[in-house]
């Protein structure tokens, strides 16, 4: 029989609940219970819930209940300690399937046959066994490919805000992502935490349209699902991803959305335990906890598969210094920032390349990977766009007349950069070459001696002036 994590197996049963507080159960007179043990809770109405031991002593145990404690009472609720850690069944049969937030199929199809059962917490990859990620992924989106290249095995989050089109961007990346010169497609693991069913449906429909659904595993905890289960969802998804990548050689792309909801669930547990809070009420161990999710990406020497992570988080108040984006940024290998101001001006995708960053880009671009001029072009575009943006602020105060001809050119550059380079259609899939050529078209509007970030031999080879005809296809 197929088991979700709600494994049915013999265990020790107690009916000695002393107190129920928020998502926590306090069970007394327990004996020989293991820390972290998986617990089944049978409610008075006979329904079953899942839980985990958070703290244990000789005569009591503290349990967090993933589905919440609504409807539980102290007298009739049964608590069954299973003696096992939380495990999830893994199998390649999971491809094309839809699971709930703790790994149980909900698509009405027959249960897949598990190849193995794995602890949802995984184990840290030995840093000595890692291989540094170097293969660039072409997402077809210039703002990412040209300026913040994603690499296979990287963890690169989208930092967004409410009402911004991060879902569109993520869907476009899932649809378009390839590694030039490598035919194998990505396998997708989609983990939803507290997003609406509309949002989930949008992703699933888009994957269905492109045919990618056949190589996708969906793990869904939606907005109306239990909040504490969100602590489990990304772990279930990543356990499946690790199996696909490291046992079956797949290249896996994991989409985690929305990590903000995950962090809220974490805070809820911490508050219920009356822990000393860190910043803004989030627990002091949130960094370590988030790391135990984000660090489950990468590649391992001697194994073919990879895990690339794309977490999405919505920044409360668009505030990047909020603990959730802040701690995430310290763990992930860069961030892609979705910008409200660009969005308001009708630019899609509204990616602000300046605060965005891909830490693994430096090793993933250049000759033999993307193109030899990539670094120079990208550095120069950055510089010029930053210059243009800061001049915009100045213009707001002193007016355009006060600017020198040089400054005016940079101002125009920034406008064209947003319209021609950043902006593109939801279905427009640009190659690295196309992206870089658009970059050159824009740089060609600046005097050549301003192009200090590009080595002179690269200018001689790639500048439109020396390449004869005008290249690229700026719209």
């Amino acid at each position, binding site marked *: 029989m197929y088991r979700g994590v709600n494994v049915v197996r013999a265990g020790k049963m107690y009916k000695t609940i002393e107190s129920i507080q928020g998502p926590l159960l306090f069970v007394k007179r327990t004996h020989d219970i293991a820390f972290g043990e998986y617990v089944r809770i049978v409610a008075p109405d006979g329904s079953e819930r899942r839980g985990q031991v958070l703290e*244990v002593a000789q005569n009591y145990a503290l349990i967090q209940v993933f589905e919440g404690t609504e409807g539980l009472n102290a007298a009739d609720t049964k608590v069954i300690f299973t003696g096992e850690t939380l495990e999830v069944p893994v199998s390649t049969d999971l491809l094309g399937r839809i699971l709930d937030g703790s790994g149980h199929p909900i698509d009405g199809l027959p249960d897949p046959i598990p190849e193995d059962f794995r602890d949802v917490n995984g184990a840290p990859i030995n840093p000595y*066994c890692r291989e540094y990620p170097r293969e660039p992924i072409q997402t077809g989106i210039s703002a990412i490919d040209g300026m913040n290249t994603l690499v296979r095995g990287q963890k690169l989050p989208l930092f967004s805000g409410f009402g911004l089109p991060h879902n569109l961007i993520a869907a476009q990346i899932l649809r378009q992502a390839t590694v030039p010169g490598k035919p194998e497609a990505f396998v997708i693991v989609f983990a939803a935490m507290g997003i609406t069913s509309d949002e989930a449906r949008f992703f699933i429909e888009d994957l269905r349209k492109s045919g990618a659904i056949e190589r996708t595993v969906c793990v869904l905890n939606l907005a109306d699902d239990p909040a504490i289960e969100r602590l489990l969802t990304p772990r279930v998804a990543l356990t499946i991803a690790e199996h696909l990548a490291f046992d079956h050689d797949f290249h896996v792309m994991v989409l985690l959305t929305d990590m903000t909801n995950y962090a809220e669930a974490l805070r809820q547990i911490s508050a219920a335990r009356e822990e000393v809070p860190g910043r803004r009420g989030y627990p002091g161990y949130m960094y370590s906890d988030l790391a135990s999710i984000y660090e489950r990406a990468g590649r391992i020497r001697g194994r073919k598969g990879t895990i690339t992570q794309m977490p999405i988080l919505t920044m409360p108040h668009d505030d990047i210094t909020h603990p959730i984006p802040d701690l995430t940024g310290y763990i992930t290998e860069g961030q892609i920032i979705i910008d409200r101001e660009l969005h308001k001006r009708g630019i899609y995708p509204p990616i602000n390349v300046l605060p965005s960053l891909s830490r693994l880009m430096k090793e993933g671009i250049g000759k033999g990977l993307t193109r030899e001029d990539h670094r120079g072009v990208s550095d120069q575009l950055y510089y010029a766009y930053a210059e243009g943006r800061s001049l915009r602020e100045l213009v707001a105060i002193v007016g355009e007349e006060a600017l020198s001809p040089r400054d005016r050119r940079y101002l125009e550059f920034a406008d064209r950069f947003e319209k021609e380079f950043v902006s593109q259609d939801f279905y427009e899939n640009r190659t690295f070459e196309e992206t870089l050529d658009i970059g050159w078209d824009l740089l060609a509007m600046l005097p050549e001696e301003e192009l200090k970030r590009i080595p002179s031999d690269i200018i001689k080879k790639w500048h439109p002036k020396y390449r004869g005809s005008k290249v690229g296809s700026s719209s």
Partner: protein
Amino acid sequence: MERIGKITEISGPVVKAVGLHGAKMYEAVRVGEEELIGEIILVRGNEVTIQVYERTEGLRPGEKVIGTGEMLSATLGPGLIGMIYDGIQRPLPEIAKAVGDFISRGVEATPLPMDKKWKMKKLVKVGDRVEEGDIIAVTQETKTIEHRIMVPPGIRGKIVEVNEEDKLTVKDTIVKIKTPEGKVVEICAVHKWPVRRPRRFKRRLPPTTPLITGQRIIDVFFFIAKGGVAAIPGGFGTGKTVMQHQLAQWADADIIVYIGCGERGNEMTEVLERFPELKDPRTGRPLMERTILIANTSNMPVAAREASIYTGITIAEYYRDMGYDVALMADSTSRWAEALREISSRLEEMPGEEGYPAYLAAKIAEFYERAGVVETLGSKPRVGSISVVGAVSPQGGDFSEPVTQNTLRVVKVFWALDTELAYRRHFPAINWMRSYTLYTEALKKYFEEKVDRNFLEYRKKALSLLAKEAELLEIVRVVGPDALSPREKEILEIARMIREDFLMQSAFHEIDTYCPIKKSVLMLKTILHFHKHAMEAVKKGIGVDKIFSLPVTVKISRMKELPYDVYEKEIALINEEIDKEFSEMGVPTCIGE
């Protein structure tokens, strides 16, 4: 007799136990049936609280706890260099050999290769009197590092026997010493030292030599002394880790201890892949031959993260005692502080600011205090030093948070990383207005004698131009650039030149990644030379735009790329060209600097 207690309570990495008689603070213990490694952090009557260095899932109340009687210690001896350890000094390659690519628990691994035979040259003979710290034998640990085996702590006396064998393992007896009490002790190449206790030395010495890093903004503006302490705080994406990697690569120390404390796994991989290939500019040998790595990444157990800092500095002290200049990079001390906070909160201690324990300041100060220049123990003392560079990751990039503030109280050099600069891709993103060094007086003599007579004047001049620029930019922001006089416009342009052509340095450019200090000074001198002429030209009414579009400015901007063997000649030519191009505009050559 084995001392055994019993687990009573488990909450994350913190375990309580009773019945462990004679338990001492910071005693190392083995926890549970799997004998996980732990350390006692609280003793209350019959009950002890233990922090466990491995994951505790599956532990049960009632399981045993074994006391080892020893403090948590580092194992010191030949074979440390080139190793990569976890926070409690288990070699990661050994763990991989034992359990595969993923780290599981309860793995035993000896820190040093026990059967490797070292060719040892004995420096003492029977009858010699020796004391703690005296060198009894040396062995070539790597091509460039001679490992000096010293009389271990607490031992002195007369050599009564010398092992004549040439090749010895770390466990073989090298000499036997008869102590004044008449006891004969066997000395081998390895000994243990409790990580939380600073190793002893004779006395502290004032720092007099800079740690040259090959990074222009550090070497010329905000230098650190050998034996000095520096902090490098910055929000994410400001380049802390790249900076730490740069220092680990290019700093002119003999030994580098690099602690990846609660950071990304891939960053350690990067070091592991790159360092064996990169050559030390001074010795031409692979950098790995002087490097020891300690990797306790963010997803590894939090208590071991807390210990990693101490393991690292103890190893650094050991090499310092041999008479080496050691540089230690800790990335990031904030993660260490967070580990302290996590443990403290599990102990239900009264929290201080932002939930950090009240003793955070003391812990930070104690750690940095283990840096310095010292005269070592021994009858023929040596001089050794430890320089410490600690990265700080302030939440929200806010420098007013407790870890940054408590660190700034003890360090002498502050490299403030700036998010704004990073967004503009100005790297290293060290803010020149906020950063400082307090080693100016201590290193003055060295710079004037060994680098350039006027070194500190160039520095002062350049910094004051940058300060002036900041002022002028304020004005421009309010009233626009038209309000500036030509002289002021010239300052804006020359400051831009200092920023872009001097301060910006690419860690990824083959040549620019390492800039010899001599070249740094020549570059700055050239820009100031240009400035002098430009001011004259402005006086003569020549437009600032025209001055800064002279052909020579392109050459100035490419000085950083000049190869090591030709830069001197090429920069001299650039200076001549400055003279020539200005004299063509009717500005006479300025004499003197």
